[in-house]
Structures are given as C-alpha cells and as structure tokens.
C-alpha cells in the first residue's frame, strides 16, 4: 500500500507537481491525500491521517519546495500528525519499518544549489531536515526524486521525471533502494 501525501496550495496552477501526481494516480494500491484540498483551513484530521499512515508501507511526500522547506500545511501536518508517543519517543513506533520517498520540485535550477550559486548551498543541505524527519520516525529513507527548475524545464524533462516516478511506484516494493543508495544518492 502506497500513501501519497500531496501538498500544493494551488494544484491547478502547478505544472511539474501536477504532472507527477497525474502519472501515478491510476496505480492500484495507491492512496492520494491532497492536504490543501482536505484541509484548506489547516484543520487537519489527525486520526484520519494517522490511520492512512498505518495502512501504508511506503509514504510519499509530494510537494513543491517553498523557502528551502515544505509548504506550510505539510509542516503543520508534521507538527500535529507525527506525535510523540505515536511516531517517536516512548511507545512511538507507528511508522517503524515503513519507507519514505520524497518527491520534490524546486524553482531554482540544479546549478543554483551550489556554494557559488544563488542558494549558496548544495541541495543536500536542504534534504537533511526532511530525511531526518523520516528517520526520526523510524522510516527507511528512499532515494528522493527531485525536479529542479520546475518552471523553466521543458515539457519533455517533466514527462521523463514523471515516468520515472511512476515506474518507481509501479515496481514497489522491488525498487526499494534502502538507506545505502540514499547515502550516495542523487542529492
């Protein structure tokens, strides 16, 4: 069972993210939860979210990167769903053994994520907090799928990345990369 946590405030205005989501939507055994659609007032139904997480063995976080991090509602979702005693801390083993795949689109070009670039840091620096969030909950970090320069790359590039995403999910769990690949992965 795959759970896609999708967080885009204006999904209709999205380009890359929309294509990514559309490419996997019809896969069997896949549940999509679009947070901005479910909770436009940030009134996250914690019990429903936790139940969905328990059903899944692969959790996908799909969203655009805003200010080097997740959109506000996904951050809020972290805050209220991944609770102490449930996701971490004493007795918090609900997510242990599950896998986590991060699928993020960014506005900056890949080259801008470098010491000499506009963002002054390699993108790996911005992966770390997300990865650690998953690991702290006992989840196995899958090699993420990152699409940089999402509003400048051509349709072809987006289609290629979307197809790769679909293939990863369609072949799950045999495509599980596990921690090892993640360490030296694409980021």
């Amino acid at each position: 069972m795959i759970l896609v946590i999708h967080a885009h405030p204006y999904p209709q205005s999205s380009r890359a993210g929309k294509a990514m989501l559309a490419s996997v939507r019809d896969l069997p055994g896949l549940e999509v939860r679009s947070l901005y659609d479910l909770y436009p007032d940030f009134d996250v139904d914690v019990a429903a979210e936790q139940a969905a997480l328990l059903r899944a063995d692969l959790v996908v976080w799909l969203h655009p990167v805003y200010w080097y991090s997740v959109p506000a509602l996904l951050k809020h979702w972290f805050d209220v769903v991944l609770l102490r005693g449930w996701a971490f801390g004493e007795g918090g083993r609900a997510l242990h053994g599950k896998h986590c795949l991060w699928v993020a689109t960014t506005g900056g070009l890949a080259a801008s994520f470098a010491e000499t670039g506009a963002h002054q840091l390699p993108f790996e620096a911005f992966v770390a907090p997300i990865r650690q969030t998953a690991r702290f909950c006992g989840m196995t970090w899958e090699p993420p799928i990152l699409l940089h320069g999402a509003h400048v790359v051509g349709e072809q590039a987006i289609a290629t990345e979307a197809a790769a995403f679909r293939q990863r999910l369609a072949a799950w769990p045999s495509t599980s990369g596990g921690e090892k690949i993640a360490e030296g992965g694409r980021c």
Partner: protein
Amino acid sequence: MLTDALIYLAAAVICVPIAQRFRLGAVLGYLIAGAIIGPWGLKFVSDVEAILHFSEFGVVLMLFVIGLELEPKRLVEMRKGVFGGGSLQLGLTGMALALGAAAMGMDWTVALLAGLALALSSTAIAVATMNERNFLPTPTGQSGFAILLFQDIAAIPLLAVIPLVGAAALTGNATGTPGHAWMAAAKAFGAIAAVVVIGLYLTRPLLRLVAGTNLREVFTASALLLVIGIAQIMSLVGLSMGLGAFLAGVLLASSEYRHALETDIEPFKGLLLGLFFISVGMAMDFGLLLSQPAAVAMLLAGFLALKLVTLWLAARIIGVTSRQRWLFAILLSQGGEFGFVVFGAAHTAGLLSKEWAALLNMTIALSMATTPLLLLFHDWWSARSECAGGKRDQADVIDQQEARVIIAGFGRFGQIIGRLLFANGINAVVLDHDPDQIEMLRKFGFKVFYGDAARLDLLRAAGADRATLLVNAIDDVEDSLLLTDSVRENFPRLKMIARARNVTHYVELRSRGVEVVERETFEGAIKAGRHTLEALGIDRFRARDMANIFRRHNIGAMEALIPVFKDEASRVSAAQVGRDELAALFARDRDQFESEHSSKGWH
C-alpha cells in the same frame, strides 16, 4: 398607614446616610432612626409590637435569599461547620451565660434557658454587617453563617421547651404531656416535608407558567407568595419561619429562576429588614436605662464579655485565622431577635419576672447597637496594630464560585458559544428570557437562568461586576443595544463580544465601542460561498484565499461606515465607494494571482 410609611421612610432616609457618613454602618443608622421616632424619642409610633412582628418578615426574606445563594451541594459541604461549630458555640456561650445568670440569683433551669437564649446571635445584624463588608463569602464569614444557621435550628426546641418547663415550674410536675410532644414533632416533620415538596416539585412548574405570561409583576407576586406561603406553613406548626424560607431558598438555588427570584425579592428584603432594625430601635426601653442605669450597664458589659470570650474560644477551636478571631466574635456578639421571643414566652409561662424580661430584652437591644460600635473599634485597633507591626497576613481566599463569562441570550447563536465553552470546561452564566428554551436546555444539563438580560439588577446578580466578559447573543436588535448601553454605563470594565443581526446593527454596536462584533450570518454565508467556488472547480485553498480577501474588504468597508453612520446621504455614498473598491480589489487580486501563479510560471 401612609403617615406611618412617611415617618419610617423619612427616618431611614435621614439617619442611615448620616450613620454611613460617620462609618457606623447602616444597621446602627436604622437602630438610631427607630430610637428617635419611637416611644422614648419623638413618640411618632406607639404600637411597636405590631411593627416588630410585621417586619420580622424581612429576616425571613433575607434567609430565603441566603438560601438561594447556597446550593444543596454546598450546604452538605457546610454540615461540619453547622453542626460541629454551631453546637460548640451554643454549648460554650450558653453555659457561660447560664452560669452568669445563675450567679445573679436565677433558678438554675431558668438560668440555663436564659443562657441559651442569650447565646443566640442576630442573623439579621450579623449577616447584614457581613454583607456590608463583603465578608460573607470568606471562609470566616462562612463559619459565622454556619453557626447562625445552627442557632436558627436550635431555637426551635428552645422555644418548644419553655411551656413545658413553665408548666413544670407551676405545678411541680415535670412529666408534661408526651402525647402532645409527639403530635408537635409529627406536625413539624409534616411541615418540613411540605416545604421540600413545594420547593422541589411545585415551584418550578408554577414559576415557568408565570414566566410564560411575560408579566414581571406577576412573577414578583408569585415569588413573594412562595416565601409568605412557606413562612405560614412553618409558623402554623410553630417552627422558625426563617428556617423554612431558608430551606425553600436552598431547594431553588439550583433552579434557573434563582437570579430572577433573587432580584425580585431583594428590594422587599432590604426595606423590611430596615424596618425590622427600626422597630428594634423603637422597642428599646430607655425608661429602664434611666431608672436602673447601673444594672443595665453591668448586664450589658457582663453579657458582652462572656459572649465575646466564648466566641473567640470557639473561633480558635474551629480554626478561624488568628487575625480574624476578634472580628468573628464581634460579628456574633449581639443577642438575637429570638431572644425577645424566648423572654416573652418565658414571661408568659411565668418563668421570668416582668422586670427581668425587660432587663434582658434591653440588654439584647443594646448589644445589637454595640456590634457596629465594637466593629469600629476593632477596625481602628487592627489598623493601628497593623501599622505598628507592619505585617500583613494573606487575604482570605474568596470562594465566589463565579463564572467569568456571561452569555446573554441562549438561542441558536448563544447556544453554540455556550456549548463550545462548556465542552472545554469553561463555566458560563447564561441568561435567557424564554422559559421553554430554558426548560429544554436544563434537560441537557446547562446552567441557564431566567430573566431579561438588559435589566441592571439581573446583570448584577449574574456577577457582571466580577465577570471578565459578556457575550451579547440577544437576537432582538433593540434589546441587544439596550443591554450594550447598560453594560457600557454600569460595567465599563466588562468586555463584550456581540452578535449583530445586520450591517446597521454591526455599526450601531461598533459605534457604541463594542470591540468584537460578529454578524450572525456572515461567516456561514462566506463558507457557503467558498463551497460554491469549489464546486465551480476552483482549488479549495484558493477559494479560501478569495473568501479571506472578501472578508477583509467587507469588514473594512463596514468599519469605514462607523464615523459617517449618522448621516444618511454619506452612508449611501460610502456604500457606493465600498462597492467600487471591492470591484477594484477583486480585479487587482485577480491580476496579482495570475502573475504569480500562471500556468507557465510555477511548478
């Protein structure tokens, strides 16, 4: 009749403010007024007995109101103070005074009777004084009240035993008539059972019926009828009327009509209690003071000394803080109105000579007047020693059990607020004037009181001067504005959150300085608008953005109306400007949104 009323009212209106001015307290003011117009003063009134008898009803009403403020649950909590503290005080003080009386040559049975009768304090004076000083809700005040309550109960057997002792003294036969005693006991139980049935089962449906007629004066009349009726039942079987009224009050304390009853009875209680004090002042036999000044002075001094010391001891034993023991003793130091009755009965039964009865009555009356004086002395003394010691004990914790929120109007709007608060353990006093509504809500366990929220006395009874905020959820625009004006004028510190029916009402409320106003239909309509946008295929979060922008503009436009509201023409033009601005705002918003979120721009 009218001349009498003129005399009493004039005496009270002149004397009480003067007494207050000299910080003697209202009680002493009334006593002085009575002494001035009485048979030993200007001789305006001669039939003191009748007035005294009539005005005793003030004490009955007072006990009813006190009962209203005490829920049965709290009365059960007080049982230790009532029976433990009460019997301790009566035993200690009664024994000391009985020994004193015996030492002056009274027969020992009569001495015991006189001692116990003198050990009783005046509920009227003690409670009125405690109220005046806001002392009643403190733990010490509660202990004092518990003792007064026990004295009221103890007065019954005391009064019942007089004819028996009298008969025994006259005939030398101590057996009395047991059959008669059984009969009396059965009657007493019957009367108390009747009061309980009336209080628990009959009153609420009756009051509900009366409240349904929406005639205020009929409600007031039924409140008085209730108390007088109960008092009559009790006096028929020779029980204390005050005790019956108190019991009825307690039984109605948890009913929704509590505040309405309280506010309706209050003025009668105050006037009759004042009349009672006046008649005590009139009853003072100043002739005795002139003919036997030494005897009266010695009796008074001895009485006060014994009573103060034993009360101080009792206070110490029941755990009154050391700083308040003398205050406690002084508050209860006077003789009670029951003393007059007991000595009167004892005189008729042939147990007391006329002289003794007159002397003891004089002592009680004078001791009532010394209470305010002793308190003044106590205040002066404690202020002095406080200055000298420079030390201040922590103030007593005031057990008010007051809710901090008042919800006025508990219809469709107020209910939601109330349920939200109740669900989160926040207590609120709810005021509503629809009896059917109240009955239904009470079934669901809400604490709802009946009354017209705009009335100042009801607001006061609901604790408006202590509450933090008031939710004005009244649906009628006129009533809502009346309440707003009343709160602004009388409780300027009370914050208000108000429900507005429409834009005009909103502006009216805002221009009266209400900080938070919510239109009753606005948020619901906004939400429905959002759903409409969503149904048209707009992203839900985007629909929320649109609603937020709309709301902000809409409220801004309404706020802009406030200064020009009084002028019809400028109101129209302001509304036009608002519409144009909204159009411009939407256009600007659309442009901005498209430039930021165009399909080619973002990911």
